[in-house]
């Protein structure tokens, strides 16, 4: 296992930097927000990402993907974290794609994965039912109804839930095992409530009331539902940790520039030793998070059974570090950092929200304890 990016991954990173700088800089997130965009992302950007091949980064080539693995996906997400790109990448290209890949029948994969990889449709994965991430609580029920099912339950804060063309819903079957159902958000009985969150993302609370589903709505190619669910969430956490790392790194870089440029009392504020030490400490924390993110992603690619511990550690540390660094960024920017006009506040907001999604620092620290055995 190497901590160094392959040449291919480095090229991917460089092209991601170029694309995102041009198509999805931080100012783009501000525009989406100020326009009151209800999807929470720009379709043109999403199509552009598909053309770059990104949306099929973890999809097999047979289904239109490039199948470069999770480390490569993390390379993209780290850059997206740097520009705060608001896209359906994690909900659609990571969570839904991985879920379909693991649990879809050949027919389902053949139908849906090319749509994801090609950027034709946006998929969202609906799993949380409470305000705090709690994968143990799934009370949404799919009951047999003729050859199909009836779906009842409520999902909360479904990422990209408002802009998605298709939902995949985690629900309990009659034997209490977990199943995953493809649900058209326009179907009868589906009610979406748009939510705007502090990071200018647009998730949705979604209620399912006696929603009638065909028999082939259930993903039917996979094995144990719980194991699949756990793994898909872990994949999502590892990828999100990469995004959080990028957010922390960019906020840190911008703060460093500010420390060098801004003068007070006749000298650059970066010459004050207390700020220097806090900056150097942050450097160390970011390096620690970086190592865990790389380790988690590579392990996911090369030795997935060993990945849960590293993923939990990576998500916990990336959450802690990105919140700490963006908070210090605000403080070190002083008054200007508190204004909406300045971009640094967007980083602070996103770090908070990304930290909450799929388990915060405490949730994942608890998993580290349990996985380690204490």
């Amino acid at each position, binding site marked *: 296992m190497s901590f160094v990016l392959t040449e291919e991954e480095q090229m991917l990173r460089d092209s991601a930097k170029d694309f995102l700088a041009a198509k999805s800089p931080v100012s783009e997130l501000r525009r989406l927000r100020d326009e009151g965009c209800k999807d929470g992302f720009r379709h043109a950007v999403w199509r552009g990402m598909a053309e770059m091949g990104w949306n099929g980064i973890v999809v097999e080539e047979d289904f239109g993907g490039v199948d470069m693995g999770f480390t490569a996906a993390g390379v993209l997400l780290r850059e997206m974290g740097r520009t705060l790109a608001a896209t359906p990448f994690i909900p659609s290209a990571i969570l839904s794609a991985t879920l379909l890949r693991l649990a879809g029948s050949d027919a389902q994969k053949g139908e849906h994965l090319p749509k994801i990889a090609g950027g034709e449709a946006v998929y969202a994965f609906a799993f949380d039912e409470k305000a705090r991430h709690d994968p143990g609580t799934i009370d949404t029920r799919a009951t047999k109804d003729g050859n199909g099912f009836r779906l009842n339950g409520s999902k909360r804060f479904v990422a990209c839930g408002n802009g998605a063309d298709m939902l995949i819903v985690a629900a309990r079957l009659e034997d209490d095992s977990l199943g995953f159902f493809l649900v058209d958000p326009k179907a009868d009985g589906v009610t979406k409530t748009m939510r*705007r969150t502090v990071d200018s993302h647009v998730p949705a609370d979604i209620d399912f009331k006696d929603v009638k589903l065909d028999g082939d709505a259930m993903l039917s190619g996979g094995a144990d539902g719980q194991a699949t669910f756990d793994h898909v969430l872990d994949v999502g956490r590892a990828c999100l940790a990469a995004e959080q790392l990028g957010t922390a790194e960019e906020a840190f870089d911008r703060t460093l520039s500010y420390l060098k440029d801004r003068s007070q009392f006749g000298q650059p504020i970066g010459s004050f030793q207390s700020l220097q030490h806090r900056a150097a400490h942050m450097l160390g924390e970011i390096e620690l998070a970086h190592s865990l993110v790389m380790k988690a992603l590579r392990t996911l690619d090369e030795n997935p059974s060993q990945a849960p511990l590293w993923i939990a550690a990576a998500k916990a540390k990336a959450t802690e570090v990105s919140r700490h660094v963006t908070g210090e960024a605000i403080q070190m920017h*002083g008054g200007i950092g508190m204004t*909406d006009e300045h971009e640094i506040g967007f980083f602070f907001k996103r770090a908070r929200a990304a930290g909450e999604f799929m388990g915060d620092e405490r949730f994942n620290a608890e998993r580290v304890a349990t996985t380690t055995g204490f």
Partner: protein
Amino acid sequence: MSNLESFRKETRDWLEANCPASMRQPMKDEKDVCWGGKKFEFANDDQKLWLDRMAEKGWTAPQWPVEYGGGGLSSDEAQILKEEMKAINARDPLTSFGIWMLGPALLKYGSEEQKKHYLPQITRGEIRWCQGYSEPGAGSDLASLRTKGVDKGDYYEVTGQKVWTSYADKADWIFALVRTEPDKPKHEGISFLLIDMESDGVTTKPIKLISGKSPFCETFFDEVKVPKANLIGTAGKGWDIAKYLLSHERTNIVGAGGMAAGLNPVGAAHKSGEVDDKGRIADPMLRADVARLTIDALAFEATMRRVKDESDAGQGVGARASMLKYIGTELNKRRHELNLSAMGADGLLWEGPDPSDGGPARDWLRSRANSIEGGTSEIQLNILAKRVLNLPGA
């Protein structure tokens, strides 16, 4: 009956007779705060009546001298007035930067004529004031300000820009620091001027914060004529007045930090259903963090009391305001962080169908400014290191 006892009785009777019933209700929204001033629209007649009656007694500024529109009360009497008002839930008749900021400076540094002219307007709520200290680029290094006032004989011609001028768009006058002697060292050559916001050349622009709308503005001066009669104290000695006023501001922000003590992550956890069957916060790590916060909150509460007791007894460490400001604002930030953590994704809402949606996130964001405004945490630590610990300069 002692003098104080009879004062208490008289006060109680007067309040009973004069405070309108509607002014004994908790405030419902921003409009219920009476700021006064020329542009102020009273929410209702009672609000105006209550202001006028209290101003008549001098009780909008209870301890100011009677000749300047104050109540002339002793500190014990003022305390009694406060207690009796609280007993009937009487609202503050007037919220005013004039009273808690400009007034003390005028009392200390103003000429007799200035006091007679400005102070009664303040106590009667006729003129609303705002503060013009900070400038873009000045930040913590407040004395590096660049707004200049060119001496034109009987007036200064003021040009420049102020920032963080709260409610400048609603104020009638501004008290501002202006560099009138550009060749002097940076802490000298600054003058404290009173400027009519209706003067030609004054414009304002609201500032939006990361938390959303705010009372802060940018205020621009373009060759504004300010009569020399509006200079407070000595020309070039405005920095002394500024320092005097900043200590008032610092104390006030500490109070703001203390207010958020009502914010309770435990309640948030209960509301989001994240408690076990014994009512304990279910996430043991969150519970640990809240417990540690609670200890520091108790410690801060006790410290506020202790500092007061010691101050009354003439004891205690110096630079108390810096210490309380640093501890209180950092504590407040932690409190908001934990509050959001207890709420989960609900705490991330920015707006939504419920009017309270977005409140916790916006309050969380706003709390970040506490450790910046009124002197950053770093400045407070510098002050403590130098003035209390007597550590040497670098």
